[in-house]
């Protein structure tokens, strides 16, 4: 059976991944770490590496990291599944949700 490496890790908090970095766009400048009011990130030990989300459950999704980032698309907010809203197209009645 194929499986990922088996590790003794504790559970993630939920939500555990408030933002997602795009490794192709983020250049590890760490500006998001500077502006985050709650200090949820720490710099990667390797210069230029993606910031590490050390305290994900303290994030309150203010969006400052995304707003102030100089590289569009490097960071995006990742709304917890249970908090993703729904909407409906008025003409077609087609239902959608935040993905």
């Amino acid at each position: 059976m194929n499986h990922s490496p088996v590790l003794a890790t504790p559970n993630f908090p939920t939500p555990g991944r408030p933002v997602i970095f795009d490794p192709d766009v983020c250049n590890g400048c760490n500006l998001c770490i500077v502006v985050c009011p709650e200090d949820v990130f720490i710099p990667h030990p390797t210069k230029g590496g993606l910031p590490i989300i050390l305290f994900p459950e303290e994030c309150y999704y203010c969006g400052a990291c995304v707003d102030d980032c100089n590289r569009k698309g490097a960071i995006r907010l990742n709304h917890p599944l249970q908090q993703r809203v729904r909407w409906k197209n008025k003409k077609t009645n087609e239902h959608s949700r935040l993905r």
Partner: protein
Amino acid sequence: MSHFDSLPWPYPIKYGEQTNYDADVLVLGGGIAGVWAAITAARTGARVAIMEKGDTRRSGAGGTGCDHWQWAADNPGSGVTPNELSNALVANHGGWRNGMSTYIQCASGYETLLELEAMGAKVRDVDDEFAGAPFRDEKTKLLYAYDYDNRFVIRVWGANFKPLLRMECLRRGVQIVDRVNATTLLTENGRHGARIAGAAGVNTRTGAYVVVRAKAVVLATNRPQRVFTFSSEHRGVTAFRGASNVGNGHAMAWRIGAEFTMMEKTIRSPFASPYSYPPYGSGNAINTWYPCTIVDANGKEAPWVDVNGKVLTTVEERCHPAEGQKFFIMGGGNASQPHPGLKQYGGPRLIPDLEDRMMRGEFTPPFYADMTSMPDYERRAIWGLMVGQEGRTRIPVLQTYSEGGFDPARDMLQTYDFIRGHGMREPVAPQERTFGEIGVSGGMMVDWDMMSNIPGLFGAGDLLFGAQDHSHAATTGRYVGARAALHAQGKDFAGISEEQIVRDKERVYAPLTAKPDSLDWKELNAGVARVMQNYCGEVKNAELLSLGEMWLADIAANEVPRLAADNPHKLMRALDVADILTCAQMIVAASQRRKASSSTLHFSRLDYPDLDPPDWQKFLVIRKGETDIETSYRPHGFWGDLEANYAPRAAENRSALRHKVSSAA
């Protein structure tokens, strides 16, 4: 790399190492009120420092936005005077609102906004996006919200206010000390209740100890949170306020003997629930979303009515006072407004019995916010201007939903009203209360200088008793910066007691010592919250409240010493929770001392069931004396004539300013 791999702490550790600064005026908390206070104090020529727990670029409740510039009765379009509006706001809160700071807000909101504009902020529709809209003044290009006749709430592009204000601080030479959690107010020779000597704090990354000597201190640390409810799990994007505002200022000032009032006011928490949706991010018709059209599952419109119950047929009619009414305060009908207010000032809203009508089959859930059918300018005002500039909406709502495919001209955003709560609100259990998450709440008692009973200790913004709003924080910060600078003029530094510093270092670094039975900050927070739910919830009597006192004292004596933190960040959170406990004790003490029930304060005592007895229509003021808690009272309206008290001080402030705000251009 997973964040569970143990990493070395990325910052140098400097526990106990001390850095010293001197300032004429020290501002604690670099949020909206704090940066404004610093700018104005610096404009008088004073030497100014800010100690901020986060980073002043984006910290605080107003860090990522403000869409409504509230109560600017001094703007050229206003149909009401500052006096009229502040008296209405105080009356609408049953007398329990800070008349002094509300007057400062109403009388200098526009003046303050113009300074913000000079710093580079967009406060009017210079790009003519809304030319011809009924809420626009074609000459000044100001955009108004709610009451289009009386025009005292201004729509603004506030998502960038905070970084601009920080730039202005730097231009004015303000010493900004970011990432330092103020923990302690220092008084002359360490004496209880004596004049202010400065403050100390701990760096949240290095653990270094920072002492600032100051002739005046402005507290601008917002309010206590997480006193009744705490969960770090599932909160996510439903969190309304950040984790850093926990009432450190309340606790610090309490410890040195400052007076507080209205601390007994707690309300059922509108935002506490982790089962809710992003604030301003689901369909509704209040606040930021005013005056949105709401339709049911079949597209049938929910009626709007004015305060007289008259059904309003057009969108525009939702933005004018009712017949016989001079002006209205907000409107929207008001699941999120904790206090229903006086009928005289009530605004248009969705028909109040909508839920009953749905239950009877007249409407089919779910409901949707339907901007598709609204005039284009109203749709663009809600989606793009208000949702977008409102605090923490630009990225989490506007950008995230737009990228997710939501189009307000085509799609209707679902509301969760009546299937799981109202507006942005969830049905919560009676014990799930909040102290200051929303609405006006308890805070530091101040005089017309915004100074507390501790000489040299000033307050501004949401930290003040009976106050709220971004423009309130800005205007009171701006005012108090000058008052504090004037106070500091010609004074020497008060002596700092080395013994107070030694004792303080012992206290703030105590969680660093490993204990065999250590307790995490989160568990302590949840433990305090549980005591508050059980003994200071919706149901209160002397017995419950004394049990509350007893169990909080027990936590202070037996659990706080077990608190442990293994890095400077967790040390900050641990000290925060110790302060939350202090705030809880203040709330219980005030609740024990109000021997009457009160509608506006959402306060009910089983042993004093009389609602609003005339004898108790007064501010209950508490302070920690040297031995016991001391109680005193102030009558409603104790501030006297608003204009007569404000005008000379405002004039004095103005003449103290030596520098203009920088023009960004």
